[in-house]
């Protein structure tokens, strides 16, 4: 056994002995610490791993046995045992609270809208969901407060209850702690905009709170931004409100709202736009408007609409 290993084993011995709240051999402990400057560091390493162990291990499912050393009259002795450090208590509590509930609800109801179709539904708990075109939502009758958004866009007006309302969109979990928020999901990208109240993103992971007027875009990175709360879900009244959105995103939104494929060419995709597009049922008028606002050329073919950069006369 190497010297470092011997030292570590000795440190382990001390950590184990110190776990006994009746431990009183402090002078022996000091002697060991003073015997070699490396002993204190060795002890710290083991002690940190000891604190970490309680946090890293999944809590036992069975009820915890009463500690053998508990002496009821000496409350503070017990406190010393539990009070390994304030950090350890916090870590232990978090470990208890953050046990991931990995049993997925088996959704047995799917609601889907056709391209360009809008629909409103009310869930069993009274939560109202407004679905945009090309949207698929799933939920299980057994767990009415858990919903999965596979694709598309939905505005949730959550009925307040003791049970939190959760929306899963890809690997994003959104827990509602308030009332009104909009979720958009397309390939590799989930967007959340909150009108009222607040939404907790990935309660078991990043744990970001998005409040009213806040917005989150989740993809390779997580982008936190602001949004005009009044314009969240404005698509329901045929208004698409943008601040610095790309033409590519707008094309995707248009597809969803009008039910016809709208694609921006690679050259047109990156341009940004700030303003509002009002959806006109007359497509020709709508795309004339889009053309002017976005500075693109809109052409209609068999596959749908194509947005390309304007043929430049000046560039």
């Amino acid at each position, binding site marked *: 056994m190497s010297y470092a290993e011997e030292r570590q084993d000795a440190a382990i011995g001390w950590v184990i002995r110190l776990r006994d709240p009746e431990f009183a051999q*402090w002078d022996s402990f000091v002697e060991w610490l003073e015997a070699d400057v490396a002993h204190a560091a060795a002890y710290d390493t083991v002690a940190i791993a000891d604190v970490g162990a309680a946090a890293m291990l999944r*809590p036992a499912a069975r009820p915890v046995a009463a*500690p*053998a*050393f508990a002496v009821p009259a000496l409350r503070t002795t017990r406190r010393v045992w539990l009070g*390994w450090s304030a*950090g350890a208590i916090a870590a232990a509590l978090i470990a208890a609270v953050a046990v991931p509930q990995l049993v997925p609800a088996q959704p047995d109801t799917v609601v889907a809208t056709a391209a360009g179709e809008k629909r409103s539904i009310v869930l069993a708990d009274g939560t109202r969901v407004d679905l945009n075109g090309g949207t698929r939502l799933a939920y299980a009758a057994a767990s009415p407060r858990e919903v999965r958004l596979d694709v598309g866009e939905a505005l949730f007006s959550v009925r307040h209850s003791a049970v939190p309302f959760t929306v899963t969109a890809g690997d994003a979990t959104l827990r509602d702690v308030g009332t009104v928020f909009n979720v958009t999901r397309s390939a590799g990208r989930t967007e959340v905009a909150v009108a009222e109240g607040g939404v907790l993103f990935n309660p078991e992971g*990043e744990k970001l709170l998005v409040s009213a007027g806040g917005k989150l875009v989740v993809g390779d*990175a997580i982008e936190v931004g602001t949004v005009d709360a009044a314009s969240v879900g404005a698509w329901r009244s045929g208004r698409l409100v943008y601040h610095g*959105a790309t033409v590519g995103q707008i094309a995707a939104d248009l597809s969803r709202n009008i039910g016809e494929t709208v694609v921006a060419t690679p050259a047109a995709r990156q341009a940004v736009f700030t303003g509002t597009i009002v959806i006109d049922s007359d497509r020709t008028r709508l795309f004339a408007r889009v053309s002017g606002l976005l500075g693109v050329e809109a052409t209609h073919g068999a596959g749908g609409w194509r947005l390309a950069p304007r043929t430049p006369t000046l560039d």
Partner: protein
Amino acid sequence: MTVDGLEAAFMQNRAPLLRFLRARGGGDDAEDLLQELWLKVIRPDSRPIASPTAYLYRMANNLMLDRRRSIERAMRRDREWAGSDDAVEPASAVPSAERIVAGHQQLGLADRALDALGERTATIFRRFRLDGVGQREIAAEQGISLSAVEKNLQRAYRAMIETQRALDAEPAAPQRPVIEGARDVVR
């Protein structure tokens, strides 16, 4: 014994406590750390304590451990920021320690490392560390000697130290960078 008793015990043990803090790695900061300990001792919510000297040493030991953990957290943060390409500020209000804990548990590395040592060792460690059962009682439960219990605990602790080392070596959990201040964002 009352709070005054604890204060008196502190006064009597000032020199040995200072020595302890130095031995624990406090170095030149030992006097300051002793002062910190004193402030904790005189806090009004102290309750009657059976053994004040042991209590003081326990507090001093915890103080040193917390200090070590803060230093390591700061070092880890510096390493991560030094390694990242963009000057990205974490937007989350949750302190990184909690995030790290949640991440580690989800990875299940510690459980697997412990279970790999066999059912007896894993059980003994969990009884000792999670259930808070003493070594003698565990020896009785398992029908083995006290030294056998100690050996099992040693093995388990070695595995936990290794797991801690492995987890400290990489970013805590698959974390995506969080960027603040975006409106409709360009990807």
